[in-house]
């Protein structure tokens, strides 16, 4: 414990580093996954190709990826950018299927009625399909957020400072408190981001919150309707 109290600055710095490494991949994977997922949901051929490719992407071990990315992108071997790119790839791999499934889950009747009242092609996507897929997308994004925070610790191996550095450093120097602090902080950070997403969902998807309240109101309304 004494190690922790005397190294609070270090823990805070590594937590911030970790945040800087994990937040961009979470946002980027969402941004890339939406058009890819849309494409996968739109045509049967593209569905097979995109979903298989994204599944394979997730199967690539991270260490070789850290050497492939600099070669392809032209970044230096020790750039934190490599980690951000790798984590984005993993996030996209998870998220594409979620987006495709989320869009496919949109009620056909609702979609059809949107067409019937005069929504045009893209407005159906932005104003009907995407918001209605919202709860599924949010669930997927929460998995991506937690897994990205956990995966980002690997960055320590290639020199990207993160909470993972606390594990490697703790192992090398035999400081058990440092290792435990690294684990606890990683979990805490994952929970924090998860909580932030849940909060964001409540703000952006208010109707899902009301589902339970709605069922209650419905019973009252039914009773009123029958007695009327």
């Amino acid at each position, binding site marked *: 414990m004494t190690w922790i109290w005397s190294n609070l600055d270090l823990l805070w710095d590594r937590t911030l580093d970790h945040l800087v490494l994990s937040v961009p991949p979470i946002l980027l994977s969402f941004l890339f996954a939406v058009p890819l997922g849309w494409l996968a949901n739109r045509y049967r051929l593209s569905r097979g190709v995109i979903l298989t490719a994204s599944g394979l992407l997730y199967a690539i071990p991270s260490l070789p990826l850290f050497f492939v990315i600099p070669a392809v992108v032209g970044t230096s071997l020790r750039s934190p950018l490599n980690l951000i790119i790798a984590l984005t790839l993993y996030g996209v791999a998870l998220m594409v299927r979620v987006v495709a499934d989320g869009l496919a889950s949109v009620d056909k009747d609702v979609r059809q009625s949107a067409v*019937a009242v005069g929504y045009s092609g893209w407005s159906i996507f932005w104003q009907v399909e995407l918001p209605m897929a*919202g709860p599924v997308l949010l669930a997927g994004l929460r998995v991506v957020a937690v897994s990205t925070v956990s995966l980002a610790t690997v960055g320590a191996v290639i020199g990207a400072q993160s909470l993972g550095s606390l594990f490697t450093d703790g192992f090398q120097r035999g400081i058990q408190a440092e290792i435990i602090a690294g684990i606890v902080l990683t979990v805490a950070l994952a929970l924090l981001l998860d909580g932030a997403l849940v909060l964001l969902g409540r703000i952006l998807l208010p109707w899902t919150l009301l589902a339970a309240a709605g069922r209650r109101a419905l019973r009252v309304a039914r009773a009123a309707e029958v007695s009327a």
Partner: protein
Amino acid sequence: MIEFRSVSKQFPDGTLAVDDFSLTLPSHQTTVLVGSSGSGKTTLLRMINRMVDPSAGTIEIDGSDIAALEPVKLRRSIGYVMQNSGLLPHRTVIDNVATVPLLRGVPRKTARTEALSLLDTVGLDRTLADRYPSQLSGGQQQRVGVARGLAVNPNILLMDEPFGAVDPIVRAELQQELIRLQSELGKTVVFVTHDIEEAFLLGDQVVILRDGGRIAQVGSPSDILSNPADDFVASFVGADRGKRALHVERRGGSDILVDTEGRLAGVLVAPTGPEASPDHRAPQ
């Protein structure tokens, strides 16, 4: 006025949903397309707002061929009400009603004010305006659906089995509400149902369809009841089973109407109130 001229529709899988259908639907009246599933009634309805385009033939609205009109623009000028309301679950009641005006570029404030008064029109309390559809009962959702259909003040209102998914008591209430609305608004209503009772109640003109959108009979409810064109129509309206041939029996001090098979159909009473009119909507 809506005119179908030799309209056919073959779907890509080969099904001939509609085969050489011709019909005139007069303005400001309710035309009910009634038939069992596979009769092509919904396909016919969806051709009017170009959700489905015919494989052959033309459809004209007030003399202009709708094939020349832009589908999205056409749809925004026609009210559409469907089964299970088809409301957007992520929009509040008021935003659902204001949907089409907003799409047409009406300012938000105006659209909402008008939507509120439409809630009055369809008999919904304004306090429901900020609820989500899932918080309403089936009957209330259908009323919101009707309000949305009326929101752009369309000349034509398409209704695809709108009361099919609500219980009989609420359905009867909604049917009466539609009759009231129609007497006030005088829209050209095209109504699809498989329920012949509903067709006779609501329709000025009733179209009985066989498979493939072939017309078995067109006429007013009383025409069809008194002169079924053939055995198919007679069986569809229940005339062949004696359901429509009623006689009066005096029982316990009341005049009871009884059909040929002995089923009790109702009580004979003197016409009263505003509904006492000589047309088919008088109590039977």
